[in-house]
């Protein structure tokens, strides 16, 4: 019931996207959609093209064919910072934080696009620019509270343990107040407890802010628990798409994960 209310119209539509690097095909003719407020998982064995798919969505890779429509705006090619300004934020498989900066500064960079004063004003660090900086500081602090990382606000992130770095990265993405959040293996390398925490945060973000979430994850139990719908990729092709229970029962998915002999 509550799910019906939460999930809205299609916000992201991926149509016939293919991507190749030279002769290597990373993605072949992939289509799927993501609805507003949904938690959508992309799963698949190693090298299935999951990260490539995410990279196409936020503009790191330009699809060789096909198009991607986000919030009604269709584009075959997009610059990464444009994707960010349209409301797509993301985290990375191998944490990409600003290692030399503090947690607070990292989260503040997430506010970058929300800053209205232009570069010149900001550079002057005067009057309105200072006032604006303080407003964004408040927003950043709210995210920090939300993810319970107050105690490491002033710590340089390069020194933090892995699990916390992942959380700071999520905080930076959230600070941008995105419409859609792309999470590339948010729980990789975490222990059981950290995974549970991360799950809780993802669900909380989704519920409280109504943020649409697209996530890649290896841990099947996690994926099946928190996702509304799941896309399964294998060797760059889509082999299944649907609700967790259907996907779990799909013979091609079972084959892909357990491995079968191909004739």
């Amino acid at each position, binding site marked *: 019931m509550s799910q019906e209310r939460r999930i809205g119209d299609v916000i992201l539509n991926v149509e016939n996207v293919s991507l190749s690097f030279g002769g290597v095909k990373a993605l072949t003719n992939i289509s799927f959609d993501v609805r507003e407020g949904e938690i959508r998982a992309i799963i698949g064995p190693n090298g299935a093209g999951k990260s490539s798919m995410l990279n196409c969505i936020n503009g790191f890779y330009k699809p060789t064919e096909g198009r991607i429509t986000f919030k009604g705006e269709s584009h075959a090619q997009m610059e990464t910072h444009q994707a960010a300004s349209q409301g797509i934020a993301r985290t990375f498989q191998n944490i990409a934080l*600003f290692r030399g900066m503090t947690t607070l500064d990292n989260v503040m960079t*997430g506010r*970058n696009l929300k800053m209205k004063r232009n*570069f010149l004003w900001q550079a002057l*660090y005067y009057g309105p620019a200072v006032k604006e900086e303080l407003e964004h500081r408040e927003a950043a602090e709210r995210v920090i509270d939300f993810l319970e990382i107050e105690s490491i606000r002033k710590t340089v992130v390069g020194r933090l343990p892995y699990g916390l770095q992942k959380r700071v990265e999520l905080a930076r993405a959230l600070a941008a107040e995105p419409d859609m959040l792309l999470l590339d293996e948010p729980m990789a390398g975490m222990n059981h407890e950290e995974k549970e925490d991360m799950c809780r945060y993802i669900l909380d973000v989704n519920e409280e802010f109504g943020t649409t979430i697209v996530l890649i994850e290896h841990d099947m139990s996690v994926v099946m628990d928190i996702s509304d719908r799941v896309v399964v990729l294998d060797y760059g092709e889509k082999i299944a798409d649907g609700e967790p229970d259907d996907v779990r029962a799909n013979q091609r998915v079972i084959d892909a994960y357990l491995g079968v002999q191909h004739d």
Partner: protein
Amino acid sequence: MEVLNTFLIAPFLDMADSPIFLLEVVIGGLMAGVMYSLVALGFVLIYKASGVFNYAQGAMVLFAALTLVGLMERHVPLILAIILTMAVMIGVAYLIERFMLRKLVNQAQIILFMATIGLNFVFEGTGQIAWGSNVKKLDIGIPDNSFEIGGILMSSFDLFAAVTAAILVAVLAVFFQKTAVGRALRAVADDHQAALSVGIPLKTIWVIVWSVAGFVALVAGIMWGGKAGVQFSLVLIALKALPVLILGGFESVPGAIIGGLLIGVFEKVSEVYWGPAFGGAIEGWFAYMAALVFLMFRPQGLFGEKIIERV
């Protein structure tokens, strides 16, 4: 025994003999050091923001100074000439981004370094084609008079240079640490991809960094040009910035300042007290020796980030 005396004892006896003179030498060294710091700052800025060692920094100093002098020769008033030169440097930064950096995104550092060597020649060439290759006098209206404070002889021009450098450093420190742009610059330096993903426009940031480096080059050009005349050898002072950078660490603004001051003092003190033992003129190479010895003990420099590889 005699060798020991000349190198290890006599110089210190000389120092103890006349502390006032020693102080004068040290202050003279500090003043010269400020000038080195100014040049080193330009390197540090670009290195911090893009991880590129900009070989062309010295040529940028020459180019900025030549442009300024060229304008002043055409009877443009000083202030206006400085503003116009700055505009030229911003235009140059834009061109560098548009035609060099943009094509080289994600290339290895050595490739970018090679590109800056090319840039060096472009600056030297165009500067001289546009403004000629004669030594030019740059008069910015600051007299180079000597005066005494508490028995210590000082030069008013050196003092002016020192104060200018101090202000510049303070402004840059605030810019990097306190402003949103500074934060964006540091973010780009840390991780290009992550910076793009939070919506920092890499291209704009690069234009800003190279403009700031151009500004620092202009200030250094004014100071060095005002002291020694605007000439081709300005390019070579960039080489003097190398030991400063080794000492201070490539990514540290305070390091560039303190490194510059230390090198300046080393040079002057060694020249005055140890120079005669070597037969004079050791100022030229002493800084490099000092940097070399220093490297053996602290490869990351005074303030550089220590590189720790996790295994």
